[in-house]
């Protein structure tokens, strides 16, 4: 496996720290904000972002998660997937949603998340924060806040590992080869 680390745990922390400031600056504080992670790794990232925001402002910001399995456009291409939990801690109507995911790639996950949100309520606005933007969008979607812009080839594999899920935090990029991809 020729995996190269492009972001270590400290860099990820600094990126989230900066994104927290950016979110606060753009929204003028935590008032009316809700952070929603997209499972699996968007959820711990959402919690980290919310914690970083709280460290800056001293006020907790509501965190939840939104599962997009039932909104995927490729459901029938895969074996049936188990559902993840959807937990929305606030009335969406009066809130600005910050969606959080680990990697922004084709944009299809985010499109599915927007569809899912629409069925739950009508937020005032939806913003997108991702740890890594690796390009190759297939839909007109962009992130408002990006931890790291990572130019990649379409056939490269970007993996985000988080301490909460994987035991350690690192973003790695690997080339497809005979050894296969993780």
């Amino acid at each position, binding site marked *: 496996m020729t995996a190269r680390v492009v972001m270590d745990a400290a860099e990820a922390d600094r990126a989230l720290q900066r994104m927290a400031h950016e979110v606060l600056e753009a929204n003028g504080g935590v008032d009316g904000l809700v952070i929603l992670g997209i499972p699996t790794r968007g959820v711990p990232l959402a919690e980290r972002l919310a914690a970083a925001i709280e460290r800056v402002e001293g006020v907790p910001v509501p965190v939840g998660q939104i599962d997009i399995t039932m909104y995927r456009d490729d*459901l029938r291409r*895969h074996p*049936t*997937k188990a*559902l993840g939990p959807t937990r929305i801690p606030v009335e969406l109507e009066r809130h600005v949603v910050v969606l959080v995911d680990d990697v922004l790639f084709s944009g299809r996950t985010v499109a599915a998340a927007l569809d899912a949100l629409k*069925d739950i309520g009508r937020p005032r606005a939806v913003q997108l924060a991702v740890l890594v933007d690796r390009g190759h969008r297939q839909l007109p979607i962009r992130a408002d806040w990006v931890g790291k812009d990572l130019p990649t080839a379409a056939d490269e594999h970007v993996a985000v590992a988080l301490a909460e899920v994987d035991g350690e935090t690192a973003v790695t990029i690997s080339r497809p080869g005979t050894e296969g991809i993780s």
Partner: protein
Amino acid sequence: MKHLLSINDLDLTGATTILDDAEEFSEVQQRDIKKLPTLRGRTVVNLFFEDSTRTRSSFEIAGKWLSADVINMSAKGSSTSKGESLRDTAMTVAAMGVDALVIRHSASGAPSQVAGWVDCGVVNAGDGMHEHPTQALLDAFTLRRHLRRVHGPDASFAGCRVAIIGDLTHSRVVRSNVLLLNLLGAEVTLVAPRTLMPSGVDAWPVTIADDVDDVLPEMDAVMLLRVQRERMSGGFFPTPREYTIGYGMTRDRLQMLRPEAAIMHPGPMNRGLEISSDAADGAASRILEQVAAGVAVRMSVLYQVLGGNQEGER
């Protein structure tokens, strides 16, 4: 999962996934917009050769909330009453391009036979005296919620004791429930007059008891099954009154239950026969929760049958 014909089609992981997903679907039930796009463009036909308002409507709602097109067909007024065979009826419906058939039939094994004839998915919605897997799943779902309320969110079925009391011979619910509860790790005790015990019950993974009063104080949950009116003239027990005295969940028996025990009944109930109104409407009753769980569990089953690529290729 291509079909759900019997609880035997499920392993522990499969059954747990259905229950876990049903929790998520029941959250959707609380929303203003109770609609998911998951099965858009899929067609589900409810093929009911036997009346069942409750099961049919809950499959119908489940399919519609997943955005499937749901069509109800009943045997009455259909070609079946004109003498068409089960095979021809099933093949005809399947030939219209249906993605799943939900079948209720008075003959045990009918859904399994149909599954062998057609290419689409088949869900058993109750066949004769054989099985009713979605009922067992919704009972388990309701029971798991109850256990989690009582013992905390990590409560499991391990060590949970469940009594099933009633007409066990003619019940398809009991078979599915015994299989599923056993798979999940619960201990099942069956109580019924010997005349209403299914044949071959000795080989089932259950404890058999004769005296309800001995069993009740031990149980975490009691499932009462309907004593079918049409059986009363069959000589299975002397009179309805004697059945109630021997096996009914009367007000007095209610006092014998542990305070946290649950009372369940798949419906329709014969109040005053196998269950008193005190039991059916009391604090221990989970009967209405069972009905509500029916939709979420059937959404979960339809999602398993139709949601993914059934060939298993990626």
